[in-house]
């Protein structure tokens, strides 16, 4: 009794929409970044699950996953840099209050 492919995709979809809801709903910029990471993870799971559709792992799906890892890491680094630079200017991390481009 093996786990069907659809179950993995369903888990990936639920996680993706959880992260999506988090981005839309939370105020703290760091938490929004964390929810973006959740969405990237969900995409990775879908990629790996689909790469196993024809029996054994197709390596092209895994290569794509590695590139998604690279991009996620780069994005977290630069995103945190932006948050900390903005925090140094005005010590708020609430996205509703960082709405002025001036200063």
């Amino acid at each position, binding site marked *: *009794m093996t786990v069907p492919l659809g179950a993995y995709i369903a888990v990936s979809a639920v996680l993706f*929409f959880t992260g999506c809801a988090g981005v839309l709903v939370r105020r703290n910029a760091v938490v929004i970044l964390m929810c973006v990471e959740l969405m990237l993870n969900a995409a990775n*799971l879908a990629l790996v699950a689909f790469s196993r559709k024809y029996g054994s792992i197709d390596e092209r799906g*895994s290569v794509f996953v590695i590139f998604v890892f690279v991009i*996620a890491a780069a994005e977290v680094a630069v995103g945190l840099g932006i948050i900390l630079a903005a925090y140094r200017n005005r010590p708020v991390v609430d996205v509703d209050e960082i709405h002025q481009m001036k200063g």
Partner: protein
Amino acid sequence: MTFDFVEPVVFALLSIGVIAGGAAVVLLNRITAAALLMAFTFLSMAGMFVLLGAETIAAFQVLIYVGAITVLILYGVMFTKFSDRPRALFFQRQTPIAAVFVAAVAIPVALFSFSFTGAPPRPGGGDLPALATSVFTDFAFPFEIASVLLLAAMVGAIVLTRRDDAEEAAMRRRR
């Protein structure tokens, strides 16, 4: 007595871990707890990769996400202060509308995704040799571009967080 029941049980436990961790990140007020539960989500995700037979990807997942990205997020949490406030103010004004929208899209998609089927898994030797050959031959050019991207991100993060001369002078005067 066969051991066939192990795979669905492990899958159920891991998927509970993944989804519960994700929900915790969205719903919890304490950011450090949310960051640690996000790390727990990443670990459960690595377990799912192992269950799918991609153990190299699982190792990279733990190495990159739990080992580096979680620490980065914790640094970000520790250096910014989000003041204590009543619970309702942790969520933005559009929370109810956003929740309705997301649920309206998520539920049909989740139900539809159960319809995907795949071939029964063949026992293989693991994904490392095929992955390694593919990255360094077929996908060598994107691999190099990814390195340049990482270099640009590193330089960008350093430049963004550097203090300029006026701030340096102010800090030195304060000391």
